[in-house]
């Protein structure tokens, strides 16, 4: 808490103490649950052999996207010399750094044998997309940290040079995350459009989170983005939402049109187990925010922009859910004799524990909240120190 006191001495408002305490308590609960799940004799998560991945991987994908989106906006400002966006580069890069750390956190809690994690560095398999992801995420993290240092120093020339590397790496980091799924030959995820969908949904969710972050920072009195800037960011958001919806529509049409085996997977998405998440995204996360933001008048209303941004972030989270679990609920692109018809109907008598479907356990939810709370805390502390430092430097 000593950090709070020193920054409180600065020109801008201090960290809200009550919020810090709540976040710290949630973090402690989450970490406690994770340690318990490692020490407990029985699996405490909802994962199973049918659905080996659960909420951690869903949220991991979401955070990689949120992170990439932030950096894409920040580095585009310098690469394409978009003067007004340069102003938000520092908060955007701080957000991007914090989100990628959160994504790494979700991977670590997801590993079921984290004691062997060092094997990723001593004997990596060069053809595994997970190996690519480890390399790209660490490169990306280093670029983010250098970017923060340069932005705080105000070294515009070096920031411009770094942005030219940061932009492709930010696009790559989410493409590689898509390839973890889209290179699985036997799954319905096996589609070339997955990486473009991931990159565009990174752009829309990342930008939406940035808008939410900027509005929060303004409320805290640490940073003033200005209504004009929020308006133009909201316009960009509307464009990204439209492209996202277009790519998803292309994929679903291709899945369903032949009326063959993949149509079954499509029915899981449209009317089956994954349907609530799909429609939440399609209507709540794409259609409604687009209809709001497409009108210039609405983009001037900060409340509407905030509501739309929150819907976009939630919509992209829902997209991760239906994307991941439709791959496990209707696993195979062709009718598979390995998976009999009753398998996914939840017949508990099946041999090998293959039946049943995924629901997150209380432990998984608490760990997820804990990690999100921890990195929200880190974001607030970093913004408080770094934005404050720059604000003071500017006034001197």
């Amino acid at each position, binding site marked *: 808490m000593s950090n709070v006191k020193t920054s409180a001495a600065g020109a801008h408002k201090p960290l809200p103490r009550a919020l810090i305490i709540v976040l710290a308590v949630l973090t402690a609960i989450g970490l406690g649950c994770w340690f318990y799940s490692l020490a*407990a004799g*029985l699996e405490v998560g909802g994962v199973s052999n049918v659905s080996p991945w659960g909420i951690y991987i869903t949220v991991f994908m979401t955070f990689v996207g949120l992170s990439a989106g932030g950096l894409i906006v920040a580095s585009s400002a310098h690469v394409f010399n978009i003067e007004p966006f340069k102003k938000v580069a520092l908060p955007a890069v701080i957000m991007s750094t914090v989100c990628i750390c959160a994504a790494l956190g979700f991977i670590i809690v997801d590993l079921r044998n*984290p004691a062997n994690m060092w094997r990723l560095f001593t004997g990596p*398999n060069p053809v*595994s997309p997970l190996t690519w992801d480890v390399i790209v995420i660490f490169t990306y993290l280093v670029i983010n940290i250098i970017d923060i240092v340069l932005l705080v120093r105000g070294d515009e020339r070096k920031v411009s040079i770094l942005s030219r590397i940061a932009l492709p790496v930010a696009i790559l980091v989410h493409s590689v995350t898509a390839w973890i799924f889209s290179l699985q030959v036997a799954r319905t995820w096996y589609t070339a459009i997955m990486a473009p969908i991931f990159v565009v949904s990174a752009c829309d969710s990342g930008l939406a989170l940035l808008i939410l972050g900027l509005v929060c920072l303004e409320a805290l009195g640490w940073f003033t983005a200005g209504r004009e800037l929020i308006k133009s960011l909201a316009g960009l958001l509307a464009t990204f939402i439209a492209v996202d919806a277009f790519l998803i529509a292309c994929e679903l049409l291709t899945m369903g049109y032949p009326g063959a085996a993949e149509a079954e997977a499509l029915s899981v998405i449209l009317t089956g187990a994954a349907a609530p998440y799909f429609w939440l995204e399609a209507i709540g996360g794409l259609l409604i925010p687009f209809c709001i933001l497409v009108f210039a008048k609405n983009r001037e209303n900060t409340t509407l922009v905030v509501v739309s941004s929150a819907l976009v972030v939630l919509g992209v989270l829902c997209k991760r859910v239906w994307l991941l679990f439709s791959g496990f609920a209707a696993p195979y692109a062709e009718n598979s004799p*390995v998976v009999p018809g009753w398998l996914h109907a939840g017949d508990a008598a099946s*041999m090998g524990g293959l039946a049943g479907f995924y629901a997150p356990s209380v432990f998984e939810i608490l760990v997820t909240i804990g990690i999100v709370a921890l990195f929200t805390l880190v974001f607030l502390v970093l913004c408080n120190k770094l934005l404050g430092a720059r604000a003071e430097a500017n006034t001197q």
Partner: protein
Amino acid sequence: MAHYGMLIDLNTCVGCAACAVACKIQNGTPAEMYWCKVIYDEEGTYPHAKKRVLPVSCQHCENAPCVRACPTGASHYDENRNVQIDYDRCIGCRNCMAACPYEARSCNWDDPATNTYFKGFEQTPFETAHASKHPRGVVEKCVLCRDRVSEGKRPACVQTCITESRYFGDLDDPDSTVSKKIRELGARPLLESYGTKPALYYAGLEE
């Protein structure tokens, strides 16, 4: 070296699941984990109803999606071109489980030292004796009875099959019993279109 493979003749398989039991006894797999399992399915309605039986285990693909997916090389090909898992390298990411088209892999979710076959009861001496061979958090699957085969024996499931529907041997040797039987019965692997080139063949698969 050899290229070990197997043929399962569905025309004579009665679906007794003795193979699954023999596998559990041979390998001492923890509760709810089956390296070898039998899938039952019913189709149609009376009088055209039909029951389908399919024993499934790791298909020991030559172009295995799981080996590609594994980030640490824990899943690898052994000298007999069979797929094996080095538990010391496995980080428990389960990417191989997502990659396998045959649902052949299971994760050791629970700690075998405390997990029990019979819920509410203590471990049997059999479970305790095998617990240390199944570390928690790693992914496991059929090893094609590597130890038995190196001693010149057949895999446990092949040895135990009551209708002798399973054949084991060297696929590289055109004169081995398994190679001859595959040709004679016109056996095919499962889900060939994925190009995984399994070393397990099935005779009598429905088209």
